[in-house]
């Protein structure tokens, strides 16, 4: 179905090719997971399948790609559109009209497909993706997962044989991502569609894809093969596989069910340290105090209903819960972006309801969901200089550089923020709000769109800040990050706090919010692979489990 022969592609103005002498054969009907660190060439590769590279981006092509018997370089993306359906990261940006049904028909109308045929195909895709109930809804009112399913349906109306998806879930919350991935799985099984999907959350897909295509980056050739085989060699892996590899489990378990067998065998050999006593606050006043907070939006939706929360100085707390449970609304109250209807707020002794946001942010940094919105200067150095000016601080390039170095992005100091990767942008945004040395840090979904390495970096940075005595409150869906880094977890639902307690206790009692490793052992002492490896007798084999870069090929 998809054949690459000595294929080479170089972007215009680039010194080195992104794809170099690529040889690859993907059979018809295969479900392929495309993975690898950010910037390794996954997106570029996916765009060569329908010819967007080189047609949309320019550049130089060598060798040959044959997709379903056609050459995308000769046919152009428009010519390939009835063979290859392409879905992008942000569903919003692919919509042309405003109502679901019209959006599905729009491409066909432009192709001059007869009305009867259009109606038949629209009905079909509405059923295939189970979005018939959304047909008359305006697209702007749909949830993220619904939008992405509409985007998939819109490319399916032209009846492609290959579906290519470039990180379709990176902008979505876990529930929405699950909806999209299930829909894809069904399309692959029911229609035999060949699917290529790039995705960071391997734990959600690794067990039902047929192949994995792994791009190691830095110009090295990709690995292609069965999931277990490729994951054995790939350094970016979810905790279950990291643990499996560290303990030499064979065959490598891809699901919790498979992993449980191995876990039972080693459970008795483990000698974990006792659970730490829950930290006493010694009567210190909380850094963040929320008491009986209520908020109703102008639409009439009650977003917060009597929330009470205390975060103590130096504590790292995670706020978890479904989309729309009130996490973001709560965080926005703490920096004065929203005003409470009722209730008491105090953060580091200030009242956010009465202090302007511009003043508050000197003491409390807030990283919103789309960190790139925080960036607007001409260079990385300018961003930090801007922060200093905004907070009436004297310019201090030395301190700025040190801050960037602490976040591991000082080598980018002269770059334009727009040219950075998702993870780098996020770290720069973090640097920009950390300039006035705030005592508290609020983060809203900081792991969106990050790969495992970037997540690990983020966890290290946050722990570093916590160890400096900063108070951190983080809204997140990321169970593994919360398990690895936080001290305390609160679960929110429908505008209320349902549970609040030490991470180890909360996360091992929960079904949904338990980490992978915890699901293996069902014991509050094991939340992360490190917990398990530390508990092993010293004699046992203990290869490194940190995410080191893979050895260069000989």
């Amino acid at each position, binding site marked *: 179905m998809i054949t690459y022969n000595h294929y080479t592609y170089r972007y215009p103005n680039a010194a080195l090719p992104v794809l170099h002498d690529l040889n690859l054969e993907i059979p018809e009907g295969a479900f392929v997971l495309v993975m690898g660190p950010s910037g390794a060439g996954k997106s570029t590769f996916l765009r060569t399948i329908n010819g967007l590279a080189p047609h949309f981006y320019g550049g130089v092509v060598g060798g040959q790609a044959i997709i379903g018997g056609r050459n995308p370089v000769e046919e152009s993306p428009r010519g390939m559109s009835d063979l290859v359906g392409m879905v992008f990261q942000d569903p919003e940006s692919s919509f042309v009209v405003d109502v679901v049904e019209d959006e599905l028909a729009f491409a066909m109308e432009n192709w001059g497909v007869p*009305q009867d045929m259009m109606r038949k195909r629209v009905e079909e895709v509405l059923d295939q993706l189970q979005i018939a109930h959304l047909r008359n809804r305006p697209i702007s009112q749909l949830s993220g997962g619904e939008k992405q399913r509409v985007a998939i349906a819109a490319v399916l109306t032209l009846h492609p044989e290959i579906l290519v998806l470039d990180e379709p879930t990176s902008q979505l919350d876990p529930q929405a991502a699950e909806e999209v991935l299930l829909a894809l799985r069904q399309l692959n099984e029911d229609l035999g569609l060949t699917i290529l999907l790039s995705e960071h959350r391997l734990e959600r897909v690794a067990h039902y894809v047929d192949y994995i295509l792994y791009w190691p980056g830095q110009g090295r050739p990709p690995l292609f093969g069965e999931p277990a085989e490729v994951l054995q060699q790939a350094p970016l892996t979810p905790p279950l596989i990291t643990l499996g590899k560290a303990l030499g489990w064979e065959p490598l378990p891809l699901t919790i069910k498979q992993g449980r067998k191995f876990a039972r065998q080693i459970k008795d050999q483990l000698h974990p340290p006792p659970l730490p006593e829950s930290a006493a606050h010694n009567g210190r006043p909380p850094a963040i105090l929320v008491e009986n907070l209520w908020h109703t939006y102008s639409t009439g939706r009650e977003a917060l209903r009597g929330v009470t929360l205390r975060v103590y100085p130096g504590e790292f707390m995670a706020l978890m819960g479904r989309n729309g449970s009130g996490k973001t609304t709560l965080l926005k109250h703490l920096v004065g972006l929203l005003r409470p209807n009722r209730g008491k707020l105090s953060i580091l002794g200030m009242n956010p309801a009465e202090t302007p946001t511009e003043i508050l942010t000197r003491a409390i940094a807030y990283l919103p969901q789309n960190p790139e*919105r925080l960036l607007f200067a001409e260079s990385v150095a300018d961003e930090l200089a801007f922060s200093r000016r905004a907070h009436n601080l004297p310019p201090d390039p030395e301190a700025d550089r040190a801050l960037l170095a602490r976040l591991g992005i000082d080598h980018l100091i002269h770059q334009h923020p727009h040219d950075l990767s998702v993870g780098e942008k996020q770290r720069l945004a973090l640097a920009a*709000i950390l300039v006035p040395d705030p005592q508290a840090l609020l983060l809203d979904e900081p792991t969106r769109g990050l790969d495992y390495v970037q997540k690990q970096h983020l966890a290290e940075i946050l722990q570093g800040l916590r160890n400096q005595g900063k108070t951190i409150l983080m809204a997140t869906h990321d169970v593994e990050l919360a398990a690895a880094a936080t001290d305390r977890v609160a679960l929110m639902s429908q505008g209320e706090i349902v549970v609040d307690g030490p991470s180890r206790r909360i996360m091992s009692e929960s079904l949904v919010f338990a980490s992978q490793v915890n699901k293996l052992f069902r014991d509050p002492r094991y939340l992360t692979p490190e917990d398990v490896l530390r508990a092993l007798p010293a004699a046992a084999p203990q290869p490194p489990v940190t995410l080191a870069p893979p050895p260069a090929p000989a």
Partner: protein
Amino acid sequence: MSSHVVFHPYAWTLWLAAGMTAVLVTRNPLYLLILLLAASFLYAALLRRAQNSQEDAAHNRPMAWKTIVRLALFLWAFTILFNALTVHVGDHVLFRLPASWPIVGGPITLEAIIYGFVTGLNFVSLILLFAIYNSVLGPHTILRMIPGFAYQTGVAISIAISFVPQTVIAWGEIREAQRLRGHKVRGLRDALPLFVSLLGYGLDRAIQLAESMDARGFGGRILPVGRRETWLIRLSAVLGLLLLLGGLVVKAYYRSLPWAGLGLLAAGALLMGLNLWRGGRRIHRTRYRRWFWRPRDTLLALSSGLLLLGVLLLTWLQPRALFYYPYPPYDILPTFNPLLGLLFILPLLPALLLPPAPAPDASP
């Protein structure tokens, strides 16, 4: 799936054409007020229906009354004030401003105020008619009535419309983000980064959309044309323009030959129209939505036709009937003929023809 449009788009467009023509040829405030009242009742009926409806396509939601009323009051205030302050003619002088003041100085007359009021009435009626038209059809249905030759423009407008809600959201996010950076927007210079961000966002989105549209095979199928036909098209376009120009010249300078000028103009227009029609036929497009012509559409078309014909015949045969001019030597009181008044109630008819709001989504 049937069209969710309440009236057939062509019948509805005829309604708009009739209403607009009536507003444009009428200066008599009494008739205009009747039409405005009729339109307001219709709008209220549409609003009520939209509130009961679960079929909540965003474009089918009429603007809130508040918005419309605010816009109307602003327009009225502006036209009345402007006219009263700049036109100093009339017998009924209310007061005088010092003559030394440029432009606004001089007598302020009742006539000028009334004239401003009538002008405002014209504007407000037009806006309300358009708001009603839009709330029934929505921009995308209207775009589908655009003939083939304007196809590219139609797609561009369509995209621009879908950009609006997301840009509004992005604007809010960027403003919040700036405050989070400790940035206080005081003057225009401080606001600059806001616009830069918004521009960058819009650009990014445009590139992503272009990429996705390319991948989805947009652009339509344009049938190729031969060399000979290309020349034919160019030649007839030039010829058509020359005919139009010639017609204008003849009409302006040779008053003794009124028919010659008109003839040339008509020939030029015909040639241009033919050309555009041929161009449009090269683009093959189909329409997904079915448009049904129901009995209520016939009624609507008939009533709209009656209004259109009525006002056109009146301006031709009885120009004084719809005429009104408050300044001397004319009478400050408008004339009124009850029969004509009835004609101006016709735009209300759709309110009586509206089907009940559809039940909440029945499909599972």
